[in-house]
């Protein structure tokens, strides 16, 4: 009975619910493939297993690359690096952006002015170019450095959203009530205001994951990502670019498709969540 009720609820929510379901499924499958990579991949992703540049066949579903490595196996393993770096960068943006936004909005005054100005400057700058500059400065090749380079770009997204919400919430009656019964500022910020912002944070987070994957792929494609021979979608795409004029289409088609499928999945999930949580914002 409970299941049927949930099903009816789901159908009533309509398109957004289906978007969430489709996006969530895509994301789940990609995570699963990445986790189970050693069991799914037919070959070792970083060693030569056959003649180079073989077209897709039954033996090598997506062909082999210049070094005779199996493209299919590299793609399965590639998700690991991409997901790891993206998750790491999102975690960093979140843990920096949310508390800063809370603090800035709640405290106000000169702190708020300065922080807002810095965040607005960061926010207005082209994201990928900022990530390029930071990755070049920190030195690429290291997972954490790449994650930091991507994370810095998206801190302002959380900051601006949280700060805006805090500004509109901090004069509410429930905050005043909390203050009247003697709750400290920290308590008010984290246990009274933060829960109200959570749905909006989830929406920003899902969009952030999609952007982070695109930025990670971009950095790798530009040669500022992980070091070879680590399998990585963006880097494999860069590798395949050299052989494009010779018509080796399988070297570029498959890694790029994976990036796009992952991003579409997360975007669908994010858009669906946005429609479910913030129905009023649908038009914007």
């Amino acid at each position: 009975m409970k299941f049927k009720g949930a099903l009816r609820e789901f159908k009533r929510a309509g398109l957004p619910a289906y978007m969430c379901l489709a996006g969530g499924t895509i994301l789940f499958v990609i995570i699963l493939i990445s986790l189970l990579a050693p069991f799914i991949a037919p070959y070792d992703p970083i060693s030569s297993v056959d003649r180079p540049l073989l077209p897709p066949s039954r033996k090598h579903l997506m062909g082999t690359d210049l070094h005779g490595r199996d493209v299919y196996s590299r793609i399965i393993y590639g998700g690991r690096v991409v997901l790891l770096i993206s998750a790491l960068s999102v975690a960093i943006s979140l843990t920096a952006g949310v508390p800063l936004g809370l603090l800035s909005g709640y405290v106000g005054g000169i702190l708020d002015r300065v922080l807002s100005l810095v965040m607005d400057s960061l926010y207005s700058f082209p994201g990928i170019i900022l990530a390029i500059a930071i990755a070049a400065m920190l030195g690429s090749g290291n997972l954490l450095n790449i994650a930091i380079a991507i994370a810095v770009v998206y801190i302002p997204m959380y900051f601006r959203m949280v700060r805006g919400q805090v500004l509109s919430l901090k004069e509410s009656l429930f905050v005043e009530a909390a203050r009247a019964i003697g709750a400290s500022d920290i308590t008010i910020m984290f246990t009274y205001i933060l829960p109200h912002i959570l749905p909006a944070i989830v929406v920003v987070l899902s969009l952030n994951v999609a952007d982070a994957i695109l930025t990670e792929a971009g950095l790798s494609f530009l040669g500022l990502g992980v070091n070879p021979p680590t399998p990585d979608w963006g880097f494999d795409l860069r590798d395949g670019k050299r052989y494009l004029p010779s018509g080796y289409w399988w070297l570029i088609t498959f890694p790029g498709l994976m990036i796009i499928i992952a991003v579409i999945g997360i975007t669908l999930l994010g858009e669906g969540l946005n429609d479910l949580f913030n129905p009023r914002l649908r038009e914007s």
Partner: protein
Amino acid sequence: MAGLRAFIISRILLTIPMIFILLTVVFYVLRMMPGDPVIAMLGEKASPKLIEEMRAKLGLNRPLIYQYIDYVIGILKGDFGKSTWTQRPVLQEILDRFPATLELAIFATLISLGIGVLGGALAAYRENTVIDLLFRIIGIVSYSLFIPWFGMILQMVFSVKLGLLPLSSRIDPLLRPRRITGLYVIDSIITGDLKALESALAHLILPSVTLGIVLSGIYIRLTRNNMIEILRQDFIRAARARGVGESTVLVRHALKNTLIPLLTMMGLQFALLLGGAVLTETTFSWPGMGTFLLERIDYRDFPAIQGTIVFYGLLVALVSLIVDIFYAYIDPRIRY
């Protein structure tokens, strides 16, 4: 108009600290870059004495704070320093590359606006039909398209397999027109060089279509939502009641009213356009600012990297200033 002037002045004053923050962050952040530019210049085997001399010549042995003050004063005077790789003034090198990026950006914007306005208007007119759904899907997919992949697939199909369009670069090197504006399309029209014009346009198609389609999603969505709102309003019903033709209602009445939000969105999208251009340029070996930046990162050419990033930042600040002023001019409510 006094309100407008006050708004413009305060808006310009607000831009100054933003630019200052940018300059400071770029300077200190790039000083943390691993690798020594002098060693990158002279090679690993250079003698310590030579390295020391070069350092002194470039001013790299002075305290950081003096280097910083020199750099800020230099930029205010329009001096971005000298490249440690080519010894040429950085600003000159950037300005050599800027027209290529500008040309790509202009054509990509035209394409994304064209697709966005047509698609959005069509989706709004056929609201909640298959066409509407189709454009919503295109909106999501276009946003998710990874530029280098999409560009390479187009290269593979239209250049490698079909041989219809050139694979990469900006123009046939033998046909390069005399430099007037640096925009090859304009220059070849001015000089009346049809062959150069043809080559420039052929080279432009794939990169600008790539970038244009990727950026079109937001315009589709914006046009659609605005049009739906407007099509429901009384003056549209009144126009239809008066017997005004359907196409006139759509173009003259409805589309005209979505232009201002579109222009605002173009301003907001400008940073995305510049970022996307970097990836597009790399994919198509387009000799713009993006390929310049990446090339100089390889050579550890600090002044060039620093200058390019500052230049990008100034461009963004300038465009957002112009958009805000334009918007305040159109809509007086913004000024107060």
